[in-house]
């Protein structure tokens, strides 16, 4: 026995047919579950040239291999499909409770194709699968609809259902919409919500209660216990938040980036990801004023976004399934300025940065409201923030007029106008309609392309590649470009991958200038980062577990214990490499040209910033990406995996296996 259910569920919304299919063991051996299983299935089953919003696109939901085994930080699920935003591989990742719920219904993944005639939701309790009328829920925001479904179904289900669903943004096929669960936790990226909306699938409701298998549960639990005990002992003194800004300032001016990342678990436990905001504002990590500003433009903003201020209104911590860390939280926002809701999930760093410093917005209260608004609408805050930033810069430079913006005075930091604009985007109303499909489409329509920050069609996450050039490699080379979660140089230092992988270079304290080169060593580092991240996704792990490093969160030991295998790290890193290669092959099959993806000039430091921690930096991004592809065994000009690489990874035989 291992940890896989051995089956996938295929749903065709056009015909209303379901199939439960057996997955051959060799597939799990090759790519695990989660994103790996999705890459295998979508590569084989989405025809070349499929319309992302058409019936041929397949929307996949999958938990990872370790989900349900007792391994900590493995409650993440991945949605994958062909992205309507980029035209290539799309995926998004989320926590909450939905991951184990898929397995408890007896499946390692659910694949949905076709388009329903009218809005439906998918119901499965492990015994029956049904498509049910979603008319009463269509039009409700994601949180309202989730509550309404619970009211309706909790009394008639033996086990309380877990629900993943779209809000109005997804229903209206906004290309920057995502899929929510647990009251606004959102798998936001790649436009996955639009794909669900195009299928007229409002929700997936899962109420199965099957026991989840594991080869050696005692061993897995012992590994978790060891980690859990460490975490229970760790705390930070209160009041430290105020020092994060000055700390970041010092970091920004150090010639070296510090290596030890074990602090991340401490910081995330204390504050959540928002711990990064003050640091990011002053260190150069967080983009300011649509990626063109410097910490000078946001002087003292680190105090406004001091994470202690948010902790003060936290009513409880929020943990995804199987997570002892609990970086999430519930905030009581009733009665605060701008607040139209009583409660919100603690905003992530990405959201705060995208609607704070990126727009020179000084109002924390507005961000609490925006956070809840976007979570309920099911819209990606990273993409929305970048799009609003573009609109503001266009307005300030006369490219957009007041008539075009429906009378909104889109100046930097105009909180009211920002709120009004996002409301319009969510409702697809007037000027907001044009922005609801992201910054690339908006700039194609109105101009101001030089201010449109997107990579291959997707708006980048809130970390500046000029501060961490490794990130710039992944922004561009990642099959789902613009994602910030695939690898960072800073993170590499913290993870100690060299201790599990023979070819991963040891992380050394090094001058930042070294990261600007296109050396083979750096390419191996970015490759190792990407392979490990794909492995984590196949296992269903959380990136914050990953960031703790291989000595705290023992992924390889977990996998061996859960699957009854005895493989070394190199073997597992090759699984990660295989997943990455499959995703790239998916892009090639779909006619997506990896070589056409570029960082916007501004994000590469063309021209370089005149002051601040990123002063004078220009990236050699193109050269670095080429070296990264070489390290993967992909053609360094086209990004197409070489025949020898595809053979080495056994992908040809893998793609011939069908369920």
């Amino acid at each position: 026995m291992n940890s896989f259910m051995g089956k996938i569920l295929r749903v065709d919304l056009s015909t209303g047919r379901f199939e439960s299919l057996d997955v051959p063991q060799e597939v799990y051996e090759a790519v695990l579950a989660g994103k790996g299983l999705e890459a295998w299935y979508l590569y084989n089953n989405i025809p070349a040239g499929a319309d992302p919003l058409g019936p041929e696109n397949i929307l996949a939901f999958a938990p990872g291999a370790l989900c349900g085994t007792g391994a900590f930080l493995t409650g993440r699920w991945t949605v994958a499909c062909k992205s309507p935003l980029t035209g290539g591989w799309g995926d998004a990742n989320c926590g909450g409770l939905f991951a184990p719920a898929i397995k408890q219904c007896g499946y390692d993944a659910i694949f949905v194709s076709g388009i329903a005639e009218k809005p439906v939701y998918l119901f499965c309790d492990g015994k029956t699968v049904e498509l049910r009328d979603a008319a009463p829920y269509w039009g409700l925001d994601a949180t309202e609809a989730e509550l309404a479904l619970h009211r309706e179904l909790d009394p008639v289900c033996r086990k309380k259902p877990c629900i993943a669903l779209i809000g109005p943004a997804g229903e209206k096929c906004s290309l920057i919409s995502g899929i929510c669960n647990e009251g606004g936790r959102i798998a936001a990226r790649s436009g996955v919500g639009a794909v669900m909306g195009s299928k007229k699938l409002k929700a997936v409701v899962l109420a199965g209660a099957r026991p989840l298998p594991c080869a050696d549960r005692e061993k897995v639990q012992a590994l978790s216990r060891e980690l859990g005990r460490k975490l229970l002992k760790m705390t930070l003194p209160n009041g430290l938040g105020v020092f994060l800004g000055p700390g970041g300032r010092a970091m920004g001016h150090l010639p070296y980036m510090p290596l030890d990342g074990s602090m991340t678990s401490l910081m995330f436990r204390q504050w959540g990801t928002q711990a990064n905001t003050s640091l990011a504002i002053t260190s150069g990590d967080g983009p300011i004023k649509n990626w063109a500003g410097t910490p000078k433009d946001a002087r003292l903003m680190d105090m406004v976004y001091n994470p202690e201020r948010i902790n003060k209104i936290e009513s409880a911590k929020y943990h995804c399934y199987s997570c002892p860390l609990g970086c999430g939280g519930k905030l009581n926002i009733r009665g605060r300025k701008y607040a139209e809701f009583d409660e919100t999930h603690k905003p992530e760093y990405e959201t705060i940065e995208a609607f704070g410093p990126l727009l020179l917005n000084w109002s924390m209260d507005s961000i609490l409201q925006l956070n809840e608004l976007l979570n309920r609408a099911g819209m990606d805050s990273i993409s929305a923030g970048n799009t609003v930033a573009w609109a503001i810069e266009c307005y300030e430079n006369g490219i957009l007029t007041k008539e075009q913006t429906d009378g909104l005075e889109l100046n930097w930091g105009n909180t009211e106008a920002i709120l009004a604009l996002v409301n319009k985007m969510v409702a697809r109303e007037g000027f907001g309609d044009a922005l609801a499909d992201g910054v690339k489409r908006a700039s194609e329509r109105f101009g101001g392309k030089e201010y449109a920050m997107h990579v291959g069609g997707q708006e980048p996450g809130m970390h500046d590649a000029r501060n961490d050039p490794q990130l710039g490699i992944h922004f561009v080379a990642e099959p789902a470009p613009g994602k910030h979660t695939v690898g960072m140089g800073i993170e590499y230092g913290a993870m100690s991958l060299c201790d599990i992988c023979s070819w991963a270079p040891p992380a050394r304290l090094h001058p930042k200038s070294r990261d600007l080169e296109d050396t083979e060593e750096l390419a191996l580092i970015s490759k190792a980062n990407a392979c490990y991240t794909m492995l984590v996704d196949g296992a269903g792990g959380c990136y914050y577990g990953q960031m703790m490093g291989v000595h705290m969160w023992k992924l390889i030991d977990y996998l061996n214990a859960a699957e009854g295998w005895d493989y070394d790290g190199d073997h597992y890193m090759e699984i990660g490499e295989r997943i990455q290669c499959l995703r790239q092959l998916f892009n090639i099959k779909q006619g997506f040209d990896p070589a056409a993806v570029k960082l916007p000039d501004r994000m590469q430091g063309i021209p370089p910033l005149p002051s601040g921690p990123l002063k004078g930096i220009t990236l050699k991004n193109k050269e670095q990406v080429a070296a990264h592809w070489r390290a993967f065994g992909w053609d360094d000009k086209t990004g197409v995996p070489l025949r020898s690489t595809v053979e080495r990874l056994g992908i040809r035989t893998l793609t011939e296996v069908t369920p």
Partner: protein
Amino acid sequence: MIKQQPVFDYLNCVSCGICAQACPVSALEMKKEGKSGKYRNIFPELLPGVCIGCGQCAASCPMEVIRMEEVERLMRVKILPPHGSDRRALDERSWAELPEGSTVRDVLKLIRCNPAKARLLLVSVNGERCPLSRELRDGDVVGFFFPVSGG
């Protein structure tokens, strides 16, 4: 009947929620407020009456927080009553207590369904059709449908 029921040693609980999700009848909810060190947090709490004593929560907890303890209690079944029944004997999630050896007929009495009406009903236990004489077991889900209204 003697039943097993979980008890918690919250000191070692890391609020991971693995136990609550493992519970086949959702008898655990992450809603007990408390502190983990200095952090305010929520912990698993047993909903009165829902637990069927299966022990899955205890088996799933990596932190060895949960111990199964024997308690005296009645059998519990979940009842999906037909429209217009008396729900007073059911808790908010539709569970009710019945003595050992009870049958579907006893459930009808519990929800005060009149015998004439009862004859028109389709009865299911755990999703399978069955006669009114079916003896129930702890954790069963009993459903009633009016075939005339389409269920």
